[in-house]
Structures are given as structure tokens and as C-alpha cells.
């Protein structure tokens, strides 16, 4: 039986709107419409093609469709419609400039990611085949490399809202740890020096919003804690 669901969606188009507003929709769901993204796609196809959001993989691996769903950041493609209270209120992820509707400008977010030198630094000549790494060393990277750069975490972090230009935010810090933790990386000291800054790292006040919302069940706070440990043990 067809089921209907109510949505209230943040709308803003700089071409035509002087300020944002909410628009209500009622979407009729088909039998395979299990996730919020299914409903949004249907809404766009059948009711209003101007509703704008990003999406691609529809399976939680590309990180495109982060949005604020009933007050909480998440991926539309992994959010069960069944779990949502109506009307489902959709906002852009907070703290970043809105381009249009649910589409935000992610420049600042990626800038912070780029700033931690997100690549393995190892200037030695490479062997013909792979470098060796023990399974134990490799295991250190589990729980970090799965990040899809969706920004659910950073845009739910109060410290990032206040200082998006100076505080790296949980996602970039998770990646900072990813390279510190990689036994192949040779730049531990430089990386720690770069992070040793009242803002870049130390604006994290362990509020844990980031852990709460990560759709990949990663734990940026733990990574941040490990970076702090590395700093301390370097001093002694």
C-alpha cells in the first residue's frame, strides 16, 4: 500500500530568494523506498525538480548527501525513513555557507583536509614491489581509512562552527592521525609540530558530537586523543 510522508525542507536559491524559507511536501512512497534519499529522489522527480541536493552512490560510500535530518547530521542514503518523525525537517549541514537549498560550500572543509598534508610522506627510493608492512601496523589504520569526507562530523562540531578557518575539525584531525599512524609515513615530527597549535588541534573540547553522527561509525575523538598522546610522549 502506498504510504505518504511529510517533509519540511530548507529552501534558498540566491537567483530568486532574498532569504531562506521552509517548504512543505508530501511524498508518496513506493515499496522499495526505504531510505530518505529514495524519498528525495522521488520528490525531485515527481513534485518539484528545483529541490537541490547532492547525491551519487546511494550506498554510503561517496559522502555526497550529508544533510541535517530532524536536527541531526546524517547521510540521506543511509537514513531509514521508518526511523524519522514527521514532518521530516531537512536543513543543510550547519556552519558552512549555503549555495542553494541543501547544497553547501565545502571549500573550508576541504581546505582543512588538504592542510594536514593528506598523503604518505616517505622520500626514500621505493622498492620494485610493495613496501612491507606488518598486519599489526596495518591494523592501526582500521577505523580511520573508511572516512568518506562527508563532513557530518565537522559540521556538528561547535568548535568548528566558531573557527572553521583555524580549527581543523574532526574530519581533518582524523586524517592527520591516519598518516601519523601509518608505519610507512616518515614525517611524524613535522606533522606533530604542525598540529601543536592552540587552534589547529587544541580547540577540540571533547564534546563528542562528531562520534555521535559519523555514518561510518568512526571515532574522530579517539584519533584526536591519540594525537595528543603522541605529543605528550614526544615531550618526555
Amino acid at each position, binding site marked *: 500500500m502506498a504510504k505518504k510522508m511529510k517533509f519540511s525542507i530548507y529552501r534558498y536559491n540566491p537567483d530568486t530568494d532574498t532569504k531562506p524559507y521552509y517548504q512543505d511536501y508530501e511524498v508518496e512512497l513506493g515499496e522499495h523506498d526505504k531510505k530518505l534519499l529514495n524519498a528525495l529522489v522521488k520528490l525531485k522527480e515527481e513534485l518539484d525538480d528545483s529541490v537541490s541536493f547532492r547525491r551519487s552512490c546511494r550506498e554510503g560510500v561517496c559522502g*555526497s548527501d550529508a544533510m541535517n535530518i530532524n536536527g541531526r547530521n546524517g547521510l540521506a542514503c543511509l537514513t531509514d525513513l521508518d526511523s524519522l518523525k514527521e514532518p521530516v525537517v531537512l536543513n543543510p549541514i550547519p556552519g558552512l555557507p549555503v549555495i542553494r537549498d541543501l547544497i553547501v560550500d565545502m571549500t573550508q572543509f576541504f581546505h582543512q583536509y588538504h592542510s594536514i598534508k593528506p598523503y604518505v610522506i616517505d622520500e626514500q627510493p621505493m622498492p620494485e614491489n610493495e613496501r612491507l608492512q*606488518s598486519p599489526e601496523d596495518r591494523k592501526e589504520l582500521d577505523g580511520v581509512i573508511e572516512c568518506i569526507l562527508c563532513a557530518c562530523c565537522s559540521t556538528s562540531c561547535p568548535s568548528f562552527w566558531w573557527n572553521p578557518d583555524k580549527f581543523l575539525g574532526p574530519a581533518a584531525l582524523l586524517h592527520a592521525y591516519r598518516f601519523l599512524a601509518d608505519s610507512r609515513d616518515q614525517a611524524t615530527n613535522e606533522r606533530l609540530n604542525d598540529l601543536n597549535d592552540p587552534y589547529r588541534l587544541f580547540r577540540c573540547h571533547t564534546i563528542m558530537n562528531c562520534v555521535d553522527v559519523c555514518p561510518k561509525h568512526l571515532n574522530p575523538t579517539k584519533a584526536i586523543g591519540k594525537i595528543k598522546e603522541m605529543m605528550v610522549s614526544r615531550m618526555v
Partner: protein
Amino acid sequence: MSLPILKFDAVVVGGGGAGLRAALQLSEAGVKTVVLSKVFPTRSHTAAAQGGISASFGNSEEDNWHWHMYDTVKGADWLGDQDSIEFMCKQATEAVAELEHYGMPFDRLENGKIYQRPFGGHMAEFGKKPVRRACAVADRTGHAMLHALYQRNVKAQTHFFVEWMALDLIRDKDGDVVGVTALEMETGQVYIIHAKAVLFATGGSGRIYQASTNAFINTGDGVGMALRAGLPVEDIEFWQFHPTGLYGAGVLITEGVRGEGGYLLNANGERFMERYAPTAKDLASRDVVSRAMQVEINEGRGCGAGKDHVLLKLDHLGAEVIDQRLPGIREISIQFLGIDPVKQPIPVVPTCHYMMGGIPTNYRGEVIDGVDEKIVKGFYAAGECACASVHGANRLGTNSLLDLVVFGKSAGNSVIEYVKTMDEPKELPENAAEFTLARLAKLEAATSGEKLADVRRDMQVCMQQHASVFRTQKVLDEGVANILDVYKRAQNLYIDDKSKVFNTARVEALEFLNTIEVAVATMVAARERTESRGAHAREDYPDRNDEKWMKHTLYYSNGNRLEYKEVHTKPLSVDYIPPAKRVY
């Protein structure tokens, strides 16, 4: 109307695995390059690849590239070009080692080497017994690879135009490619990108089907642009149906599940693949397994109320192996079906997965036109949008990620050589953007007609019904009539949203106008091929016919014309592998 013009030495269209590998080659060589991508690069669909990337390291048991080459030729059902296949298989270990050097976090064996798992059609000693050749990062290999390649490009300071969509190729009076037109989504502004060389790495087009493992953005733009520019697409009738798409959702369940020891069951609880492929069983080639599943379903041995799927059993592997090697699969299955594979089997159906055909290239990544394979100057292609013809009629699992890096690099090297031969890009033709602007103007002007969602759905239903796992003349004849009708309707497309800023309705409409080109090409090419080879299975012509059909299809959109060209039978250094019966 004149458009702003941006000038580069090289423009790479696509920021997936192939585009990023090519871009890296160019950036590191100091070629002034820009990479255009519809999405932030790590959002490309390479991120969804799960199972692995092939290379005959032999980390777990003896292996070598000759065996890999044999498997690829056989997997391709002898439609692959053996020079390209040799090139790819021989380069594989170097290419994958490079990925490791870029920081890709491969799983490891106790001795520190890259972990390798068995996969469909990967055999030792020229087809004798399964071999572990798929290098893996759990079941998230593509994600790890794409991020490592992006990260290396950050290091190389590659220049990106993110959320830009290429619209059309620009060719001059000699037919040489001198740039593209492109839409900057955020502003709605259209530009001419003028360049010495254009490299397409736009990925697949699985969205021509209703059920697909592909992302929304896999809309065949590169093929659409090439066809509109008068260039052909090769072997487009060959589409891979992956045996294990998640029932009802289309999301992929990797062959790595069977590599790790999972197997398929019909409604009687029978491990039916033993009947169809006594040696390789569940690890036979994908086309073989998909057909077997379809036969089981057609003959009433499907599972569930509708008897319309089979089951993939893996609970016997135990929670520990599943969590270590297949954590993503467990997550997907719980997320989309509420089924935990540690306890219950996963319902699966053959699902459209991969486009074997594409823009014809040689193994250097140069685009070639026509039966005599004339090089189209200034134009290069790599990855799923291209057809170097390594996959022929059926791709082996893990050979695509390999294709991306081997041919991405090779095409990058060809571009480097080519741009060195000139100081400036060849001159733009007059009215270089006229064609694009006319297409856009038509879409802007239309306020009624065919609604995007309707025509797109009709295309997908038509492909699903008329160009599926099994095909017949009657079904294909009807399919051609239907799809041409959809094509006609697509010329009357309209969208309501006419605004400039980040107009995703317009982007979807422009994407669809590419997708429909691919759909028509597929149906027309499939109708003519009266044999069964690889993924193209004709019930009315059940056998491979080498005498008549061991040749590549070339489809041109002008008049829906078909030509045929020879399969390359001269490998680069080894002996030709002659056709044989394909048994697994």
C-alpha cells in the same frame, strides 16, 4: 554569443580512478593540466569498488602475468585485443606497487606483503586451478584506491575544477580535438576549455538499466559526447551483469564473498554452480554465473515468494572472517535488507554492473576511429568509458581497477608526448560552442513536452526488458523500436527549474541526453550480433561463432550505423592465444 575561454595544455574529464591516475602522470611531468569532475573526486564511483585489483604478485602461491593474460583472454571470450591485454597484465604488478607507494593501505599477509584473495576466473597454470591474485583492502578496495590517488594528486598540486560538467567535445576542421565546452554548476556559467589534448575518464553508464550497481552519476557522458562528435563506440552490446546485486536494492555484494568461501544456493538448498562449472564452481566468470542464476530462476528454482532471486551463503565463514575481510558487505546487507550475513544468507540477483564497450582506444590510450583505426589527434580515453579492449565480451573481476591505473598512466604518457609537439593548442574552430549553446537553448526554451523522470524511466524499463542477461531476435527487434521511440521523445525534454545556480535538474537532463545515446547504441549493436559471446547471450544463437563474429562492433550515432573491425591477434611479445571452448 561568445563564451569565456580557459586555456590549458591538457584537460582530463573525470576524477575517478582513471582520471586521477592520468592527472598524476601529467602533473608530475609539469604539463599544465586541469581535471574536470561532476563531483568532488573522492565521490566518483571508483569509491564503490569492493573486491580488489588484480596483479600476479604471487604473494600466496605461484602466479605470473602469462596466466593472468590467459585468464583475461578467456574471460573476454576471445573478443579482447591481445596486445592491450598483454600490456595490462604485464604492467599489473608495477602499477599496483605504485599504488602502494602512493600510500594505498592494502591488507597484509604475515610476511608484510599485500594480501591477495581468489576471484572469479583467476586461475593458475592456464585455467587449471584457482589462484589468489586480487589485491584487497578488506571489501573497500576502490575507496582506498581512489583516496590514495586523490591524496597523491594533492601532493602533486593537480589543478581541479570540481563540480564542472563537460558538455561537448570541440573538434576542428581536421577532426582533431581541441577542447571541450563545460558547465560550472555553482554559477551556471558555460565555458570553452581550449587545450592541446583532451583525456576522457568519465566512467560507466550503468544507469541505462533499471537495476544497477552504479551510482546516479554514472550516465555515460563521455560516450555520449564522443558519439555526438561523430566518433564511434566499440562493443557496446556487452554489458556485465554481476551475479550478486542485492535483491531489490541493486547495491553490489562483491565477488570477494565467494572468493573468501561463500557460495550460491537455489530454493532447494542446492549449490547449483557445481553443475554449471565443475572446476571453478562459484568462482567461474561472471557471465557464466549470472546465466546459471537466471536459468535457476527461470526454471522455478528461485527463492522467496516471487521465486525471483537466489541466496548467497557466507555464515559458515564465521563472524571473525566476515568482520575482517567483508565488513562493508555486512554493513550493506544490514542497512538495505535488514539481514545480517553472519546469521542468514543474502538474497541476490544478476544486476547490471559494468560497460565492457566504450570509446575505442589502443593500448596507448589514443582514441582511434574506424575500421582502419585512424588516430583522432588530441583525444585520449581511459577507464570504464574507454575500450582498449582488454575486457572484450566479459570483464574479469578486479581487472577494471587495474585497467584504470594501467591505461590512465599510459594515456597520460601519450598526452605528455603529444603536448610537447606543439607550443600552443591548435586554433579553436569558429563557433566552437555553437552546438552546445543550441542544445542548452533548446532545453531552456522548452516549457512543456516530455518530463525527464518519465522518459528516463521508460528508457530503463526498456533496457531491462529487452537487453538483459538472455536476449532473442524478437526481444531485441522490439527493443530497438522502443528505444528509438524513447530517443525521439528525449528530443522534447523539458525541466521546470530554469535557474542558474546549481541547477541539478538541468544537470540531470544533460546527463540523460548522454545516457540515451548509450542505450540506443547498446540495443542496435546487440540486435545485429547473432551469436552468444561472453555477456551477450542469445537464446536463439546459443554458440559463439568465431568465423562470423570474432570482430569488434563500431557503432556511430549518425544513422545508427554499424561497422566491424578485426580483433587484435598479435600480442606485443608472446604468442597469440587461439580461441578455445570456454569451460570453468
